[in-house]
């Protein structure tokens, strides 16, 4: 890839950036302005905010995050495997079956132990 191949991207940036900038700046120049206290509150779907947004999350989110990390990242092994499956043939299929089987045991274990239940 030479630098010439990036030319369309450069043109796109040159067009898009001023467009976005103008769209943001124009209303603040042209639009009418009469602020009051209610209008300055943070918008929370029309409700009046009742607590700080930076509060502690329930620990269940952590549980889900932890499980997500584990099962999500193992997918990374599927990519090189999928690319070379043509050469690995049946052997590769069995190997990946073993790998996913072990993950499945872990998944079933976590499920049965109730880690997916919110309460």
């Amino acid at each position: 890839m030479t630098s010439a191949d990036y030319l369309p991207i450069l043109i796109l940036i040159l067009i898009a950036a001023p467009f976005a900038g103008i769209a943001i700046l124009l209303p603040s120049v042209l639009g009418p302005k009469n602020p009051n206290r209610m209008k300055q509150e943070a918008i929370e779907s029309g409700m009046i905010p009742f607590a700080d947004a930076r509060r502690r999350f329930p620990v269940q989110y952590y549980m889900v995050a932890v499980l997500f990390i584990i099962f999500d990242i193992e997918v990374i092994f599927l990519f090189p495997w999928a690319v070379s499956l043509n050469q690995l043939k049946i052997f590769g299929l069995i190997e990946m079956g073993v790998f996913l089987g072990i993950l499945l045991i872990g998944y079933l274990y976590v499920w049965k132990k109730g880690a997916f239940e919110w309460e």
Partner: protein
Amino acid sequence: MSLPTLDFSLILPELVVLITALLVLIADLLWPRAASRGREQAPAVLALAGLILAGLLTLLAGEWSGATLQGMLVADALARYLNLVVLLAAALGLLLSWSYLPHFSTQRSEYYALYLLAVAGMLFLGKSIELITLFVSLEILSIALYVLTGFHRGQLAGGEAALKYFLLGAFSSGFLLYGAALFYAATGATRLADIAAQNAGGFYMLAGLALFLVGLGFKLAVAPFHMWAPDAYQGAPTPVTAFMSVGTKAAALVALFRVVQAAGSVPVGVWATALAFLSLLTMTLGNLAALRQSSLKRMLAYSSIAHAGYLLVGVVAGTAAGFDAVLFYLFAYAFMNIGAFAIASLLERPGFYAVQDAGIHAADGLFGRRPWLAVAMAMFMLSLAGIPPLAGFFGKLYLFAAAVESGWAWLAVAGVLNSVISAYYYLRVVVGMFMAEPSASAHLRLPLPASATLAVALTALGTLLFGLLATPWFQGISR
């Protein structure tokens, strides 16, 4: 593209341990109520059976030779001896867990599954001759041990120990990996044999080896990278401490040995001198700190650090005789150290919410309460101090002799001096057991579960006989 040749027969013991770990987990899923029907020890039985089967497979396998899995693992005499020492330590630790675990946890299957995974990681680490495999094995054993360290959830110190162990362990992995990346940069290879064959010199190799040594030094609890070890060893459930203090050391030492052999282009004098100073620092710091401990378990933890220093002497020697001595000492250490922790665990009062650690005077007057236990403990202490004719004496003899032969006389002298220092705190326990009155807090009836008794008997027998009988088997393993 040719398909890789895989000879699974060479890693049969490891596979047995892994499959047993999965079986322990699956069994818990299939029969969740087995515990209520008087089969609460089923996971322990299964795990022990797996360990024994793996041990038998290791013993009965013919001449192990050659690499498997595309040159990532090797089955050689070194790996066979490592398998045996790790499986021995694991089986003894499991016997201790048998009666210890029910004091504070009902999650036996998780405990034993993690325990077996740690064992598998150690076994694979001993066979690794490739950097990626080495790293992954090291992490398998470490991650399992992080969780086991904090397994006693009612006890605050356990979680604290686990977190410290985890943070410093992960931290050290960073160094190890940086070193591995530099090896890769210098040679383009991750197989140790290829790295050695490249014979690359220069900054990358030197810096890579240095970072690698720092990473492994953390895992081995070598000073000045030892600060996690006393806390982790004290906070962990005692059977886990007993097992990991031996198993991790054994596996990491074999990995260290293989790596320094592969980094042949780095002048031997450079890494050997560095290791010699680490060894000196480790044994001195470990012994001096052990002198002023008030908890028996923490004293043994520092003693364990000191022993990492002694073991490094054999690696510093750099010869086959030196590493044969390391393997010999590891066996002796498995017997005497696990025996000592076994007695420490019997003197503790574990409960669901907290463990009352055995203080330094917990063993006082033990001879009056349980004479045979006191005799066994005296043997472990004397053997750890290196007093003939016990196993520890022969171990130290071979280690220091190998060091002298390869020109490291000053290190051997330092080792002997350190043994003298260590004798003070070991003998203090012995004197207390035979001379002192039981402390007021000592509970009158000392329960003696059958499994732990078996472990103590086996370790005592090993400590007594191993040094006298086993020497001929340890010639020329490391070649």
